[in-house]
């Protein structure tokens, strides 16, 4: 077998040129996602009554380190689902929404988005989605509102980077100036919080120091902004909601091994646990006397997740027998992650985080648990806030 050298060299020269041309020509400008700009719904429409739900924002957490938190909007008037509204409304903001969107809430004409790893709260115009301000708080977690102020829990204490300060804090934020006005130290790794009758209740987790978890709710007097009490509840607290009768529903995550997850009911009058349920709750929402709870619990002996969709009557404080999904849709749900109830239609919105690293799904169920529609979301769809006229 003989190959003529000159012919090969000519081939390889041509090949080289082609290769170089091909290789240097194929890097396009960074593609912005298709779908154009976010056009907010018109703010005034005649014939709409007070309390009308116009739509909702859905916050996708995005996997840690991916910088993929994103905000979607569903418009009930046009029945359209728009992805990435934050990026579309604020394309010039460096890095976008950020890393791990942890909470979202509407207050007045503003939307508050807590972005955990990005150490910030984005404050957006409720209708245009444009940034009004940004509040920097390291390792911030959840936000709630009470009498004109925002209250934000954060894992990192008032004194940053002090090895002897494991406690977290709650920051009070003025909703007009968007400035932090006061801070107070609470338990370790505080999670959700609720304001009620001049007091703020904060669920402490202590998740950074297993097995030494926190077991208490912090009670903060909002006049003095001092922690006045700790209510002993259960291990590794997380979710905290309040019903119409002033009872707190607190989820305890247990230690993931021998101590199972539970749900506690705490009376805000005597600050005592009045009831507990043998139920794992990863997210819940209380609406018209019913607590809708989703639970995912991992069993180390079987290597399996157990998933539940429960309803609790908050008036009788009893677990109802039926699941809030009644049409068998749960078979196709991989990992239920967030739940919300439309305050006007009582429809149930449920998110599926899937495998955490691929786009998730949003499911809408009728009040009696029958699937209405479903849509693909961003990565780890988790938190929902309704826009009410």
């Amino acid at each position, binding site marked *: *077998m003989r190959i003529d*050298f000159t012919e090969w060299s000519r081939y*390889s020269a041509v090949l*080289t040129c082609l290769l*170089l041309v091909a*290789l240097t020509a*194929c*890097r396009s400008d*960074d*593609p*912005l*996602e*298709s779908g154009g700009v976010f056009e907010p719904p018109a703010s005034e429409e005649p014939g709409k009554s007070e309390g009308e739900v116009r739509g909702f924002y859905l916050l996708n957490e995005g*996997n840690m*380190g*991916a*910088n*993929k938190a*994103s905000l979607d909007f569903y418009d009930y008037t046009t029945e359209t689902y728009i992805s*990435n509204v934050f990026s579309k409304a604020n*394309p*010039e*903001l*460096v*890095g976008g929404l*950020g*890393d791990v969107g942890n909470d979202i809430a509407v207050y007045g004409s503003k939307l508050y988005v807590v972005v955990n*790893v*990005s*150490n*910030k709260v984005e404050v957006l115009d409720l209708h245009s989605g444009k940034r009004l301000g*940004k509040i*920097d708080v390291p390792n911030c977690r959840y936000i709630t509102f009470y009498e004109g102020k925002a209250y934000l829990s954060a894992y*990192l204490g008032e004194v940053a*980077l002090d*090895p002897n300060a*494991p406690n977290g804090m709650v920051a009070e934020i003025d909703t007009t100036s968007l400035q932090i006005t006061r801070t107070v130290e609470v338990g370790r790794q505080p999670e959700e919080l609720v304001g009620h009758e001049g007091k703020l209740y904060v669920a402490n987790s*202590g*998740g*950074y*120091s297993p*097995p*030494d978890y926190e077991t208490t709710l912090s009670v903060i007097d909002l006049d003095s902004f001092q922690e006045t009490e700790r209510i002993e509840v259960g291990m590794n607290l997380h979710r905290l909601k309040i019903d119409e009768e002033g009872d707190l529903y607190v989820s305890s*995550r247990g230690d*993931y091994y021998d101590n199972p997850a539970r749900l506690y009911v705490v009376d805000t009058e005597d600050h005592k646990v009045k009831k507990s349920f043998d139920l794992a709750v*990863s997210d819940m929402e209380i609406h018209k006397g019913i607590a809708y709870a989703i639970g*995912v619990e*991992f069993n180390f002996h079987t*290597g399996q*997740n157990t998933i539940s969709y429960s309803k609790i009557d908050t008036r009788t404080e009893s677990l109802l027998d039926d699941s809030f999904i009644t049409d068998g849709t749960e078979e196709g749900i991989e990992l239920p992650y967030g739940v919300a109830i439309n305050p006007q239609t009582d429809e149930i919105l449920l998110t599926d*985080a*899937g*495998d*955490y*690293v*691929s*786009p998730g799904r949003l499911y809408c169920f009728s009040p009696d648990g029958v699937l209405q529609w479903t849509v693909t979301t*961003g*990565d*780890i769809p988790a938190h929902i806030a309704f826009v009410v006229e």
Partner: protein
Amino acid sequence: MSIKNNRFINLLNCLRLCFPVFAIFAGYGQEKDSVTDYRKLEEVVLWQERKSTEHTAVVPVQQLSGETLKRMSSLSVADAVRYFSGVQLKDYGGVGGLKTINVRSMGSEHTGVFYDGIRLGNAQNGQVDLGKYALDNLEEISLYNGQRPDAGQSAKAYASANTIYLQSRKPEFEEGEQWHLHSGIKTGSFGLFNPYLNLDYKINNRLSARVSTAYTYAHGRYKYRFTNGVYDTTATRENADIRALRLEGALYGTTGFNSKWFVKYYHYDSERGLPGAVVANRFYRPQRQWDKNDFVQGEYRQQFTDRYYAVFRAKYSKDYSRYFDPEIVTTSGFLDNRYHQESLYFSLSNSYRLTDFWKLGLAVDYENNTLDANLYRFAYPERNNYLVALTTNMDWPRLNLQGSLLSTTVKERVRYYERAEDRQEFTPTLMVGWQPFNSPNFRLRAYYKRIFRMPTFNDLYYTFVGNTFLNPEYTEQLNLGFSYKQQRDKYLLEFQGDVYKIGVKDKIVAVPGVNLFRWTMLNLGKVSTTGAEARVRWSGTTVGGLTYGMQFNYTWQEALDKTPGSSVYGNQIPYIPVHSGSANISASYRKWQLNYSFIYTGERYSQKANIPSNYLQPWYTHDIAARYELKVWENKMELSLAVNNLLNQYYDVIKNFPMPGRSYRLTINYTL
């Protein structure tokens, strides 16, 4: 019974296992021993087993050695292996960023990295950071798909889907030379300060020593670009500093009775910043990491007869790493995790030539690994590995047939909680090389290999995440290739091509639990990869005395997620480009040498779903280096200047871990 005692018993078991084999072969050898035989042996020098070259090997081999390695002016093994085809380097950026290799989309845990013939292990996470291994003390880097086909290897050499061999430099002396010293310093961008020194000393005709040491410091800061097409900002990578000390000492000896040996001590000590993912509103992170690696390893090779030789290898290693995170404040202060790994390894391999064309081999290995960590609910696992490899090589002038069967026995023990089940696996490899025509210039090759990787200690036991129910992750490879070589007076031309099909099943993946902190490991994934690689090499000299060499690599890979029921079924797996390639062109003229390197990595996705928000741009870098040789006081001095990423392209290999733009490196070295 304590772990230490157990280990001793395991060692005894192991010796019991190997000894009969050793005795049989040794006995056979002794029968024939005589003075004349020895003399004959010395002439033959059989332990210089004919190494398979890239052209003749029955598996695809890619090598970088000596001058080529020098010319490329790479800082670490990681920089150098990027030029191999079929390879994706997972590079977190910067001098101190983690750099691991992924060969043919199988995942870095499937690549065995061997240092001077013994595997560099990491029972904790199965990854070897190739950025830690500098090139100052390396003679050769080779990548073998499948396995290295040489005889006399340890059983471990057959135990991974592909292997990288790092061969350190050995002392070599000119006639009458007693010692020599090679020393230099590298400096340039990132505040790099990297002095190194290698000393060879000839103690006597049968014994020589080598000491090699290097210190690396870099502040690691570099500018990078953060953009989405609308915003476009430049920031500086912070907390990317590194300081590292490497010290190696080795003794090399031969005996008067046909044996040779070496013993080596290796020490590495480093501290580095972990700059973390770049995310919105967060450009600085304070996390830090410390590593300390020490090992002693040795090899003893004895030729018993002209038909039989044996190699004994042993290694003891201790690895320490510490992760510090001041952003996590626990009840006992900042998060400060410490991990201690210990490993003990013995191997005995026997190679016996049955007939002129047929060789048999039997290798028996024992390895013990332990991991201690100051983690909550930690199991303190210990793993005992027993490997036996039976190999057969049949070499006729135009046909080579090789086969091996590996038996792996794994027994685990934990101090607390659950342990993984014991395992016994048998895995085969078949390799064929064929010269179909009279001319040796054209050869065909094929191999089939089935092998697995064990779940790592992290997979099994990491608090909250580990799952002791895991099965091994299996790979199955089928490769067909050819090699063409044309040698003339003035040039050498080589073409190589391979096509392959690889299946990975029971892939160990992290799946979510209750929340982001509660993942668990499961055998879920299935990947099917179809690929093709092509290499062209051409080197020679021109009439004017200019020496040139060039190499082009191209890889096409379709690595598809075939996990049943997955929403991403049929998508290309993360970080694997369909097209990738490299080019390397060098020229030397008298005292000057020039080198140009180019790497291209096509578009990829950063996560499983092939959607726009996971899309990563292709990237390509151009590196150039010039070297000049001069004499200073009768001794050789070299100056070299390298400019990497010449066109200052900003890119990420791993999303949100930006790579440096243009950088410079100056090297001066002097040989005494």
